[in-house]
């Protein structure tokens, strides 16, 4: 009835012993286990029983070697040259294949097309915007603020440069304030308080053929890289 289990436990023994050479405490434990077993099986001792551990014990050293051989064949001394090259080749190929397989998994995560909303849109005519004001009406739909100062119109990203929250324009304090970590930005988009590391980005803004403002969110202009002087980062009015 308990043959199988019994066998298992016996098999474990040499391994336990092996490891427990480093660890006396553990040896105690495993010994305990085996004594435990003996007690447990006293009533069902079968004639085979003494044979099995004996056999195992005899084979112990050989088996140990064999098991090393299984795990790391490099130890095997035979025909060093020929198998060394085959084995190296095998492992190189296997590793490369495994790498390729993980590459496949990685590549699979990047689809060839995206179903994301359009990044280019028209935002009315320049005259729709009041000088000196921040227009927040496009924030919800397109994710931009449009700001017109005396000479320029520019489109500011509504993504906080800290962690991507959406700041709010506080009209009275004349600043953008991020609710997540308290970063503050001036009307120009330049950061002046809180943890934001850099100013808000500006989007490409040009006049379309029909005289409307065309904003392209795929093209960003970062202040710290000096891109705000790029002619597409603002619209002259």
């Amino acid at each position: 009835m308990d043959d199988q289990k019994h066998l298992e436990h016996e098999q474990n023994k040499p391994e336990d012993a092996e490891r427990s050479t480093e660890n006396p405490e553990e040896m105690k434990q495993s010994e305990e286990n085996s004594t435990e077993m003996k007690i447990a099986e006293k009533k069902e001792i079968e004639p085979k029983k003494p044979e099995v551990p004996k056999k195992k014990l005899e084979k112990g050293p050989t088996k140990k070697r064999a098991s090393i051989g299984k795990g790391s064949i490099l130890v095997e001394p035979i025909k060093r040259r020929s198998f060394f090259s085959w084995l190296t080749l095998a492992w190189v190929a296997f590793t490369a294949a495994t790498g390729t397989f993980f590459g496949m998994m990685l590549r699979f995560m990047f689809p060839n097309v995206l179903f994301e909303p359009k990044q280019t849109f028209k935002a009315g005519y320049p005259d729709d915007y009041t000088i000196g004001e921040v227009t927040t009406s496009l924030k919800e739909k397109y994710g931009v603020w449009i700001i017109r100062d005396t000479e320029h119109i520019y489109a500011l990203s509504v993504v906080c440069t800290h962690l991507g929250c959406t700041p709010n324009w506080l009209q009275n304090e004349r600043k953008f304030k991020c609710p997540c970590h308290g970063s503050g930005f001036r009307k120009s988009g330049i950061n002046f308080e809180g943890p934001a590391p850099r100013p808000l980005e500006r989007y490409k803004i040009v006049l379309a053929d029909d005289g409307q403002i065309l904003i392209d969110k795929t093209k960003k202009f970062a202040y710290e890289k000096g891109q705000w002087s790029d002619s597409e980062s603002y619209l002259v009015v």
Partner: protein
Amino acid sequence: MDLIKSVINTLASPTILFTLIIVTFFFIFPLNDWFYRWNKRLKLDSFWTNRGGIKMFIILLVFFAFGLFDENFRLIVLKPDNVPIVGLIFLVAFFTWLSMKQAVDNDVHIENNENVNEYSDPDDKVLTWPDLVYIELIALVLCTVLLIVWSIGLQAPLEEPANPTLSPNPAKAPWYFLGLQEMLVYFDPWIAGVLFPSLMIVGLMAIPYLDTNKKGVGYYSFKQRMMAVSLYMFGWLVLWVLLIIIGTFLRGPNWNFFGPFEYWDLHKLQPLTNINLSEYVYIIWFSTGMPDNILLREIWGILLILGYFLILPPLFAKTWLKNLYNRLGNFRYSVFIILILFALSMPIKMYLRWMVNLKYIVAIPEYFFNI
């Protein structure tokens, strides 16, 4: 009443709270013999007695009971997703007490050359069935009961439908990441969001390899592993649990600090202007403009950082931590000290921000590289 509240509000402000805790922490959890002596002298180990435990429990209970009468406090504490953190506070307090009590108990035994409480004769074992299995079963049943009662009593939060264009104010990460989020206030995302978490995981994993102390296995003990326990406690209680508590209860709209009894006013303003080290150097001290060359501009910060990580470790190895260095050896010491320096950089940076409005030590936003 209002006076108590305003006192607590004031105490809860980060500078005071943090300073208080940092100053007292290592007296409660002594780092070395010097602290240990003071700990004894101040009778701080009386926390870890039954009486101390009950006192602590009562204080906590009274605080919360008292707090619940305050509308602002109630509003925050009873927010469904914050309830686990209230539970966490009690659980952490209880288990800290429980473990320390047993540890202190065992310390006495060890000092008296007695067996620790956990010791039992290796031959005198108990059968797993039914003792362990049974108490496990009971624990599971009780746990299930707790979970169901909790579930019936408190509905899981469901707010308005997701709106990608409208950030709630404040927008918070799940509570168990609020420690990280709190760090984000002081550090660039790549440090607070990527480097620190990775180091935390790596650091935790490294613990068994760094702690060469063979003592203290299988029983609660303190004195034998004083430094290990205290450092762990610091990381766990201060840099993790405390930051979570701050992030949950004390961070309000616009990520401003609010006392536990303070109304979360959307319009509250705090002076948060801060500037980089390079600006300090070139603008405020040298009164020249900022150099165009990035490396030149940030050289001071870079030197400072290099100094922090390259000069301090050998310095410590020669002085303060000589014993430790000798015990751990080169490699272990290096890893250990680097991890510790990283952990320390957190409070350091916080204080720099609070005291001198320092934003970044190295600020190269051009390459998203800020420290």
